[in-house]
């Protein structure tokens, strides 16, 4: 044979299970990355801008002096910096994200493409109205879909997030009561299981919050609610399906009761994914409901935002829709931006934001809704509810589900820490151990009505195969925890997560001595 000395070993190597310490701190693909500010001033450029002419300024003596304090990075360094950061994040595209009440469904990339069409992304909110007729038409079309799906006659499109939508709904209620001359109505009934934004919003507009307990079936206690009604009650705020993942089967009775007492029914629509296309909130007696476009309608969570929270209104609240809103005008559309331009019977309660709302989220949501259609959206709710019930059925024998045997859940399944009693493992430990198994934990310690809550919402975009693997992971952890502290079996939990880019962080220190920005080392030393 002709000799060839290019051979190298090609078989798999043994070992690799021990953690070795590297010199750089990197661990193969998982890279440590400093702050951009650790780089300091270097004179590098990350953009190529033309050289200014250097003409005399017209700043009226307000020109800044001195440095701002920003670091200099080149473009390749910047791209690498943020790409490395991204690799430390879990995401829906990474794996199942079973966060109850968040509806972490797949975020279609078609939505991104549509939002980036120049005709939607590269238009200014204050261009002459006739130059953006396609934009008004899109907003109007989305409004039509939201009203038709919910069976409500009016919608406020401008709120920038769910909590902002709650504010919109309660302000409309306040305006309606003021228009009726009923200023004495300042009390809001809120279930004890409500999301924190509900009482926070009520308090923000000066209402007092009166908490209504839950029954042992996990629903709002109707008798208790009725007992709290009176001529000073402005509204009731109910989440349906509720935060325990259950449909409020007495919702019509709740609506009748609050209406009979002269108040309004606000519905927190965070869990709309369970019923979209199968139930219309308008048929349940709802007066106002915010819709989280970033939950039910797939606009991306983006690491915490932006969201969008349009609010559908009943006939009684329709006159109070805030500015601005789109109306048909001849064969085109017009945006009503000032109360002087409002039509007969329209009495907007004010303005909640500059410009027109989250257009970027409108285009994404519209793309999603058109891709599903009314038949597809109905299937979304069915599969979401089916997936949650499947997870519940497969876990309730090894975990504890406080309402697991009283009927089906909706799109999310609630567990508590009863099954962990005596094991020394807390809900928090259990959740952190789930991180090592490759999952983002479910929602924990919410709702507050059960101890050590674990709220699991798979959504409809998860396959049965994914669910089965998740169920396997949860069952394994549950059984391990219950096996108790024999042979260090609970170490898996108490120090978790072990395998993520950071282990448990010192949140106490972060709160006692807050460090909210980078400071130069010399300054930090001087401060000590």
């Amino acid at each position: 044979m002709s000799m060839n000395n290019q051979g190298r070993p090609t078989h798999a190597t043994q070992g690799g299970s021990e953690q070795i310490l590297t010199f750089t701190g990197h661990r193969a693909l998982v890279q440590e990355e400093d702050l951009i500010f650790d780089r300091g001033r270097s004179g590098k450029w990350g953009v190529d801008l033309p050289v200014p002419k250097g003409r005399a300024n017209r700043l009226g003596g307000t020109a800044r002096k001195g440095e701002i304090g920003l670091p200099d990075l080149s473009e390749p360094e910047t791209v690498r910096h943020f790409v490395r950061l991204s690799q430390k994040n879990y995401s829906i595209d990474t794996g199942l994200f079973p966060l109850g009440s968040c509806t972490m469904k797949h975020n279609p990339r078609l939505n991104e493409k549509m939002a980036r069409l120049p005709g939607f992304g590269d238009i200014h909110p204050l261009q002459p109205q006739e130059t953006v007729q396609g934009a008004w038409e899109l907003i109007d079309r989305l409004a039509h879909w939201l009203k038709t799906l919910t069976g409500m006659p009016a919608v406020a499109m401008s709120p920038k997030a769910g909590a902002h939508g709650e504010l919109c709904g309660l302000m409309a209620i306040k305006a309606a009561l003021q228009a009726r001359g009923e200023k004495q109505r300042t009390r809001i009934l809120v279930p004890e299981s409500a999301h924190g934004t509900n009482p926070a919003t009520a308090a923000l507009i000066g209402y007092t919050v009166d908490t209504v307990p839950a029954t042992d079936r996990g629903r709002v206690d109707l008798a208790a609610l009725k007992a709290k009604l009176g001529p000073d009650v402005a509204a009731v705020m109910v989440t349906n399906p509720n935060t325990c993942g259950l449909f409020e089967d007495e919702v019509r009775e709740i609506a009748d009761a609050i209406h009979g007492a002269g108040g309004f029914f606000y519905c927190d629509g965070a869990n709309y994914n369970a019923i979209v296309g199968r139930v219309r909130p308008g048929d349940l007696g709802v007066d106002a409901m915010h819709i989280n476009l970033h939950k039910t309608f797939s606009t991306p969570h983006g690491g915490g935002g932006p969201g969008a929270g349009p609010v559908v209104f009943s006939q009684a609240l329709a006159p109070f829709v805030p500015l601005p809103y789109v109306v048909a005008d001849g064969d085109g559309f017009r945006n009503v931006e000032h109360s002087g331009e409002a039509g007969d019977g329209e009495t907007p309660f004010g303005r909640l934001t500059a410009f027109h709302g989250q257009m970027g989220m409108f285009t994404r949501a519209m793309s999603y809704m058109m891709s599903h259609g009314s038949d597809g959206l109905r299937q979304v709710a069915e599969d979401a509810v089916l997936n949650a019930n499947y997870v519940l059925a497969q876990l309730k024998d090894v975990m504890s589900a406080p309402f697991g045997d009283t009927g089906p859940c909706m799109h999310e399944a609630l567990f508590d820490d009863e099954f962990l009693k005596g094991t020394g493992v807390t809900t928090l430990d259990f959740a952190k151990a789930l991180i090592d198994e490759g999952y983002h934990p479910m929602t924990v310690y919410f709702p507050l009505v059960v101890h050590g809550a674990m709220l699991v919402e798979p959504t409809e975009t998860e396959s049965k195969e994914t669910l089965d693997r998740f169920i396997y992971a949860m069952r394994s952890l549950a059984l391990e925890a219950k096996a108790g502290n024999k042979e260090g079996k609970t170490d898996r939990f108490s120090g978790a997560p072990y395998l993520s880019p950071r282990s448990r962080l010192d949140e106490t220190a972060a709160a006692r001595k807050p460090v909210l920005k980078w400071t130069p080392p010399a300054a930090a030393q001087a401060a000590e």
Partner: protein
Amino acid sequence: MRYLPLTPGERQQMLAAIGARSIDDLFVDVPEAARLKDPVDLPRFMGEMQVERELGALAAKNMTASSVPFFVGAGAYKHHVPASVDHIIQRSEFLTSYTPYQPEIAQGTLQYLFEFQTQVAAITGMDVANASMYDGSTGTGEAVLMAARITKRHKAVLSGRLHPHYADVVRTVCGHAGANLAVEIGGVHPTAPEDLAARIDSDTSCVVVQNPDCFGNLADLRALADAAHAKGALLIVVVTEAVSLGLVTSPGAMGADIVVAEGQSIGVGLQFGGPYVGLFATREKYMRQMPGRLCGQTVDGQGRRGFVLTLSTREQHIRREKATSNICTNSGLMCLAFTIHMTLLGEHGFQRLAQLNHEAACDLADALAEVPGVEVLTRSYFNEFTVKLPKPAAAVVSALVKKGVLGGVPASRLYPGDKDVENLLIVAATEVNTDACRAAFAAALTEVLS
């Protein structure tokens, strides 16, 4: 249906495992009368091609900023966003991640939030910044509520040259807020000096002023800051064009107690008004009264630097009815876009960008001043100024559209029915404008006015 992975066979298996005969069994708690038998009356399922065709048709009806000489501002500005920015924010781990409540697997998000907070504090000249509000206008409303909490007083004094949308948001929020806040808004005039100091008394919680203001005027706010502080009131400075912070003395250096800015100019693009990103910064002593999320530095069990959301006890999910605000989301991905663009700009890039914007405005002002009948009213400005036309500006702007120019915002769009400002046009210039654009604008305006 490509987004729904369950097959009919799997659905049957799962129902069997649950012990239900059909999906309807799982909706048994819904009152009979409320159960919809059929899909609602809306279009049925559409494939990807058809969705693109339909939405593309709507998009095509709109005149885009990049297709014509473009001078529209008044609170949102057309800047060049480097290609890397939009590319990076579309990475799955940024786009489809969640609020970093589990910090061990969200250090990417938390680190960029910490960098964002540092950038915002630096450019505003303040001690601390939060991880963003929805936008500048809602941030302004929150700032006014915060000032009331701090001073325990009940009157907010707003400059008449604060962007009217912002003023309306403050009025709406304060009008309904439990704190019984009265809002006084100054008269509207494009140039006459506004004596805000004279309106501050012992019941004033804050003075809110925009710099550059809605008509483009730049002012030194130090005297106003002193006047406010002398009476125990806070100065809130609003900045709608964040790029101005690269050339103008920072609000912090001018004596602001709270700074609210619209960050849209950096990384975000026009987007027809949203989503944008609100910058919010304040003094160290007011830190715990700040609304919104805060990211803080700490260490993990192995002593490695890491980041977490902190001071959460101010927020709705813990404090509930005693929260500083009801805000739940921040502007996440727009924050990231801002941070990336700001990183690419760096110290001298940001200053140069601001310089180019100012020069573009000076060149534009010179060109428009040559047009017969046009008077440039603003003396000191950054990248936006007001011109007075010989006839109502709204009609002029519509006529300019027919000549293929988007030539600014008529003041009547923001102050309808105010005869005094009917002939005023608010014009913005940025680094994207060229000499050819400016010449086209001046020529078209000359024709329209003749």
